[in-house]
């Protein structure tokens, strides 16, 4: 009887140990799975943080590049515009001189017609010739300065268009910093106009 009981107890203990080990093994497996998921989530989180950091850094850098480009473009455009204004003024002045010489030439023609003495006529004719030469020279210079004015005008338009493109790029491609910069710029412009 005793050996039977001992056998049953041994089997019972064996089953208990087996169950205990099975449970422990399952628990460890579960801990491993959950730890693995936790580490995977942590990796994803870190990767996302790095991506965001990298993205922000790129936006900062691009913002600076575009701002510098915009600044240079504005500076060169200002110079081109100043040259354009000078060319316009020069043209106005030459135009004024051409009109004046035309008026004077008409007066001299009239005076020559009315003049009776040959010496007076000769003197007037000399003045007319001098004015004709002057007019011819003024017309030549006017044509040249007109070409310069047209060239400066094209440059100004081109540079203004580039400046505008850069301004929009800053607004649209460099995040909130770019939007804020754009808004400040527009506000400054509006206050200058007011």
């Amino acid at each position: 009887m005793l050996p039977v009981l001992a056998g049953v107890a041994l089997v019972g203990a064996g089953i208990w140990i087996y169950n205990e080990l099975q449970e422990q093994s399952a628990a460890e497996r579960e801990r491993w799975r959950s730890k693995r998921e936790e580490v995977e989530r942590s990796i994803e989180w870190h990767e996302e943080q790095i991506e965001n950091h990298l993205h922000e850094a790129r936006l900062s850098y691009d913002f600076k590049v575009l701002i510098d480009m915009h600044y240079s473009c504005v500076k060169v455009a200002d110079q081109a515009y100043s040259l354009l204004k000078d060319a316009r003024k020069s043209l106005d002045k030459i135009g004024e001189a051409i009109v004046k010489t035309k008026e004077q030439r008409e007066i001299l023609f009239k005076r020559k017609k009315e003049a009776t003495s040959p010496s007076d006529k000769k003197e007037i004719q000399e003045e007319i010739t001098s004015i004709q030469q002057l007019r011819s020279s003024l017309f030549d210079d006017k044509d040249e300065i007109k070409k310069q004015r047209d060239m400066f005008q094209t440059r100004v338009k081109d540079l203004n268009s580039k400046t505008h493109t850069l301004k929009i790029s800053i607004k649209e491609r460099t995040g909130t910093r770019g939007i804020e910069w754009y808004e400040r710029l527009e506000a400054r412009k509006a206050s200058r106009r007011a």
Partner: protein
Amino acid sequence: MKDIKPPPKPSTNTGKGKLIQDVKAGKSLDFDKAGMIGFLKSLNPLQFASEAIAQITHYKIQIKNLETEQVRIQEEAKIRHKQIDSALKAGLQLLEERRRALEMALEVVAKDLENTHLEKQNILECISNLVKNISDTNLSIEEKQMSNTLLPELTGLLKTLGEQSTVKLDLIAQNTQKALEAMPNSDRILTFSED
């Protein structure tokens, strides 16, 4: 100024922040219970115990590995953040230096053009006075002729100054263009090695 290099395009960052990791390398421990050998093994009562103990030990080691990996990942992430900050700082410093150099060059040309502008203003004033002489009846024919000779000299000077200014403007535009083209874009400055 020719076409400026197109502004930097929005960066595509996908995959650029990936960390080195081998979490997926850890596997569960399963014993082969199929076939005749598996059946014979399962008859051995100690086999269950040894397999269970082996599994417990295996998972404990795996968990320890994961904990180490987690710490390593955190450290690697810190290094990446520091790398980004340093690269950005270096890039911005480079841009600042270039900007200062460009600004100085622009100022020199601007000053030069400003002087030319003032010179033109003086010439225009002289032209105004000479234009008045055309119809001035108090002047002698000699004086008028002198004035008429001087006037085209001055308009010619305006033309020459305009030509010189065009050359200067071209130069400043070209130099600015070159300086802007030399600016490295963010993809070149802020990037990780794919190795």
